[in-house]
């Protein structure tokens, strides 16, 4: 009897501990883990959020970079951290991509995480040199007429941009050559120099070149037209019905976080992106602020993993 009581003691202590923790959370600083090096989009978004969240939660939210292996180093770290609410992660669309791309990950991309909310969503744009193609239908028709001749530059093998291009092959039946560059800027430079015919990347890369009359933006990857560029048709309405690729940044935690704590952090994220100043900066980075529930985010990630698995397989991209 006593033995059983003794065994039950830590369980009771733990339960009361968590209930207590949710009330007083946070009592110390919170680590905000990013999986990418300084200076990238992820880093910027994390720093944008850290400040208002620190004010809101009353404890410093400290951005900590654990770069490597396309964000997998950070995801591994977070998935194995204590689910006490003091480790949160800046997730990106790559979370779903790497789940499809890696043979074995030391963590489960869905079960090992508590999903809080996306921060912003952004589509990819298909662009060509100004005047090269009349419209997206023209590009796809020419690509089909001469398979294996038209070159798409992208920001690296296994990037979401790369897979979006491969998905375009899959959905339209066209056969493009996919040429990897180191980052979207390098791919855009190659398009400026005429080395590739098409580039698929974000609005921040494309818009200045479009404004200067160097690029024509032919289509957008999202299901609906993007509010920034209402004149740009979607791939779905033109050449690839059902085409819907939107990448994102979001916030997650290890699995098993007390739901009261998760709600508190989610509310803080939502408050931060509702702030007009922060929202304006997210928009400048080419994204649309997108508060979500944890369930919605989880479903989205799950669907994207399915899509990318299909693409990786059909495009014959070797798994890592």
């Amino acid at each position, binding site marked *: 009897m006593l033995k059983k009581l003794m065994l039950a003691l830590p369980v009771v202590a733990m339960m009361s501990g968590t209930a207590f923790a949710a009330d007083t959370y946070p009592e110390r600083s919170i680590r905000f883990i990013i999986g990418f090096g*300084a200076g990238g989009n992820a880093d910027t978004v994390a720093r944008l959020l850290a400040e208002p969240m620190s004010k809101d939660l009353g404890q410093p939210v400290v951005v900590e970079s654990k770069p*490597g292996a396309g964000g997998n*180093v950070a995801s591994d770290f977070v998935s194995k951290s204590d689910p006490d609410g003091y480790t949160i992660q800046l997730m990106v669309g790559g979370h779903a991509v790497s789940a499809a*791309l890696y043979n074995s990950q030391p963590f489960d991309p869905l079960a090992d995480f508590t999903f809080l909310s996306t921060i912003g969503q952004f589509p990819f744009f298909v662009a060509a040199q100004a005047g090269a193609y009349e419209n997206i239908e023209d590009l796809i028709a020419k690509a089909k007429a001469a398979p294996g001749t038209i070159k798409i530059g992208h920001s690296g093998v296994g990037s979401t941009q790369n897979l979006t291009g491969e998905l375009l092959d899959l959905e339209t039946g066209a056969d493009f*050559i996919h*040429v990897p560059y180191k980052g979207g800027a390098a791919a855009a*430079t190659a398009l*400026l120099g005429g080395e*590739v015919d098409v580039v698929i990347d974000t609005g921040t890369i494309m818009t200045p*070149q479009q404004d200067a009359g160097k690029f024509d933006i032919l289509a957008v990857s999202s299901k609906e037209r993007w509010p920034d560029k209402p004149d740009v048709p979607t791939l779905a309405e033109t050449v690839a019905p059902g085409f819907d690729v939107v990448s994102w940044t979001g916030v997650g935690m290890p699995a098993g976080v007390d739901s009261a704590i998760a709600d508190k952090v989610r509310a803080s994220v939502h408050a931060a992106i509702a702030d007009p100043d922060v929202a304006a900066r997210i928009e400048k980075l080419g994204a649309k602020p997108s508060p979500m529930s944890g369930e919605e985010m989880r479903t989205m990630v799950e669907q994207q993993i399915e899509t990318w698995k299909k693409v990786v397989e059909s495009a014959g991209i070797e798994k890592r």
Partner: protein
Amino acid sequence: MIDQFILGLSVVLQPEVLMYAFFGVFLGQVIGVLPGVGAITAISLLLPVTFYLDPTSSVILLAGIYYGSQYGGAIASILLNLPGTPSSVVTCLEGYPLARDGRAGFALLVTALSSFVGSMIGVAVVVMAAIPMATFALKFGAPEYTMLVAIGLVAASLISSGSHLRAFSMALVGIALGMVGSDASTGQYRFVATDALADGISLVSLAMGLFGLSEIIRNAASHEPRKTQIKLTLRDIFPNRAELRSMVKPVGRGATIGAFFGALPGTGAAIASFMAYAFERRISRTPEKFGKGHLPGLCAPEASNNSAAQTSFIPTLTLGVPGDAVMALIIGALILNGIVPGPRLIIDEPELFWGVIASFFVGNIILLVINIPLIGVWVRLLSIPYYRLYPAIVLLICVGVYSHRSSITDVVLTLVFGIVGYVMRRYRFEPAPLLLGFVLGPMLEENFRRTMLLYGGDFSVFVTRPISATLVFCGAALLAFTIGSAIVSHRKALKDKNTQGGPYSV
């Protein structure tokens, strides 16, 4: 052109803007001196601060950190054989021997002057030729980069004071090390023993280990006293007329090479300084003096990396395409401030465009002015007994390397490379060609495979495109010349050996 430059000056000379320029270059200088801590770390930490500044001040501040760090990088190279930035690795080769000879102050002044002149030439190129340079840079596709990098690798075997064969083998080791990580063409991992190696070996840990740390081990193992001059007068450290004259041409050549490499997206200051050094050695009538504190070998690469630091703003400012991570950050700062840099920047935001360029001019003057009085302070550092100094240096190296990618593996690797570097020195294998192979090998592979992908595996593309064909010709000539001169010197050495029985190296 002049009118616009004056418009820019009027922007920079506002007291507030001037203060940010000063703050930027000063911080850059400090960051540059600290081994391993790079401009990227400092710039990304300051990025949120720029939300509160206007876009022009933001870029002036961040840009100042970058080119300021190029000045600072040379200081630790000269004093302690510790490259503060990867682009100041070659500064170790000639600067450190001078310091060991008790001429640290002189070496510091020479690099400050060369850096200043190199930067000014770079600024002049930006002012006068930004747009034509950018247009020219766009003509460089994958085949051109492939050939350019191939020439660089041939040059790698030239930056050695010993034998070409040893240098060449070191370059091969460097290429092999450069292959660690994910393959750019397929994304497959190569030689990735742990997850921490998935992004490859860091250039910073390789450079810090092979140069800085191995030197510390060597010093700890020997009891050779160091020569220092504590009391310095300007006359002691100022180059005499003959020395000044011998600097003019190398600085000019270095700055030209730097301006070219800087303007190409994806190359940059580190490659520029290596190339300038290799070029000086190749054309020198007294190549045997290199590696022992030879002036042209010190000032050409310094002029080159500083010139490159300025012209690397060309693709960023005129095309809106960043050439490297630092430039991507600066573009990020502009975007967050509501300005999207692109080809229209020069038309839509002339005050920003010319203000930033004029700030380079002003910033470099500030750098020269703060550097000369500091020489005395730096040299005094050497009067501290070495056994007191090196624990602090080892700690600084570790912190610096860690700050770069927040990776403990990088720190461990730095220590390993330190030991490897010590062994290499004992057996007269030089680290510089290894480092250049490490930088250029992956670029060669990436661009070669991209060329093959783009042109369907057709090798003729290398000779049918005009710029590429020119580069092929230059590379072949350089190779033939190098092999030819190696054979000649080998024969000569054999002859000498037969007559005198002295040793020679292959």
